[in-house]
Structures are given as structure tokens and as C-alpha cells.
């Protein structure tokens, strides 16, 4: 996977949402997800639902039970990282990684139009989410990045994080 930055996406009262951005691409993965579906007649409403859900969770706290992580997609993968989950509006998925009640990292997503994400139109984003999750989880385990309250910092204490 190419190197990517972890950048702040939006800071609500109870949750700081981060996103990921490839260093050679203009927009973050979550911005790309929004731009792809915001004008869609078919999926625009589901995107609205997901955005509303993000705002609601931002105000309540990222309770573990708000996130569906038993979806077959995740169980099928070798790395059963428990924090990995998805926001879903009907069959539209936005993949994410819940790190704590106050930190969630948003990725990209797409339409799940087959029984599994691997077979769906969103398979690329699904595997990318898996790869992002793996890199971030490894970085946390190695101490390359740390959780400081509701802020992600690198080992030097900087909020500019490139993995």
C-alpha cells in the first residue's frame, strides 16, 4: 500500500473523526466517498443517513455497540480486527476503524451489491479499509503512533502522521 496521512476529518463534542489520505491524491478517502455519492439519485439519501449518523455519534460518543462488526465481510478476512466496522445506509457502506469512544478513523466505501463485499462493487474500498486498518493497528502496537486522550499523535507527539 502507498503511504498515507492520517488527518483530522471533523471534531465533534464527544468524538474526533479522522480520515486517511494518500499522499499523492488531492482529497481524503472519506471526502472521495462523499463526492462520489452526494449527487447520486439512488444513493444520495443513504449517504445523508450515514452523514447524519456520523454527526449523531459525534455528539453521543462512539459507543462500541453502534458499530456493526459481525458483518460477514469482516469475518471472512484473516485479520479479525475487532475495531473494524462499517457505517451502513441500506447497501451503501462507509468503512471505519473505531479506536476508542472518542476516536474513529473513517475510510472509503461503496455499494455492497453482492452477498459479500469481496464480490461487490465496493471490493477495492473494502480491501483498502482492511489494509489501512492493518497499518494503523500495527503502528499503534509498535508505538509509531499513540492515542493521547482523543488525539492521535506520532511517537514525537506530532499530529502530522504519515504511515
Amino acid at each position: 500500500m502507498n503511504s498515507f496521512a492520517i488527518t483530522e476529518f471533523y471534531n465533534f463534542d464527544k468524538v474526533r473523526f479522522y480520515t486517511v489520505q494518500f499522499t499523492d491524491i488531492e482529497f481524503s478517502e472519506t471526502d472521495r466517498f462523499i463526492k462520489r455519492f452526494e449527487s447520486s439519485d439512488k444513493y444520495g439519501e443513504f449517504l445523508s443517513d450515514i452523514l447524519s449518523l456520523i454527526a449523531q455519534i459525534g455528539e453521543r460518543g462512539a459507543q462500541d455497540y453502534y458499530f456493526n462488526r459481525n458483518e460477514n465481510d469482516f469475518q471472512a478476512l484473516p485479520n479479525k480486527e475487532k475495531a473494524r466496522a462499517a457505517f451502513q445506509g441500506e447497501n451503501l457502506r462507509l468503512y471505519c476503524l473505531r479506536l476508542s469512544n472518542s476516536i474513529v478513523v473513517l475510510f472509503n466505501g461503496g455499494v455492497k451489491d453482492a452477498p459479500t463485499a469481496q464480490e461487490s462493487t465496493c471490493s477495492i474500498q473494502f480491501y483498502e479499509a482492511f489494509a489501512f486498518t492493518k497499518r494503523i493497528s500495527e503502528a499503534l502496537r509498535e508505538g509509531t503512533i499513540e492515542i493521547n486522550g482523543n488525539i492521535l499523535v506520532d511517537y514525537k507527539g506530532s499530529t502530522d502522521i504519515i504511515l
Partner: protein
Amino acid sequence: MASQVFEHALNKVSKDSKIFAEKSLDILDQINFLMREEGWTQKDLSKKLGKSESEISKWLSGLHNMTLKTVSKLEAVFNRDILITPIKAKQRYSSIKFVPVKTVVFKSVAHFEEKRLDREFTYNKAS
């Protein structure tokens, strides 16, 4: 820096989407409260409902568009309300004749001291 794309898109979100998200999480909060009270895991709940764990997990995730039928099944298993309309709530709570509240009325400073301190303490009456 906050995402301008997100902010712009969030400002255009319809009122019904906001209500849907809010009520979805209200329901999840209520269900999880009931599960904690009963000491049930999702596995326990799935057994009581006769459903698979993955189906229950789907029900209990973020934006699952829960049908009234599903809510009814959950209410039946918990034997408690998850959804209640304002009219029903008013009918139910207006039938409560009294709510026990402990109050203490202070007739004077001396009276206050008596209530505040140990019974054996002697006090001086205020004039």
C-alpha cells in the same frame, strides 16, 4: 482542518435523515440498556429471539432500518417498552398518583440544626 466537503454535505442533509439517525441510536441505546439490565449478551438475545447472531448484530448496528415488527419482537422478549408515543407516555405517567420524595421542612434555625446534627446534640433555640 475540518473537512469542507463533509461540512457542506452535512448542511444539505434532510430533516428526515437527521431524525432517522437520532431515533436509530435512541433505540440502540434503549436496547443496550435493557440488555445490561438483564445481563444479556447479543448471543443471549439471539437465542431468545430464535435468530442467528449475525442477524441480531445487523439489527443492532448503526442505521439498520428496524421495522415495527422487529421492535415488537424485541419488546416481547424484554417485556419492556423500547418505543413509546408521547400520547401513550402521557396516559401512562399521568396515572401515577404520587411520586415518593423525601422532604424536610425547616420551621426555624433551631429546627434546621436539629435535623442536621445528631439527635443527642443539644442546641440553642433561635429567638
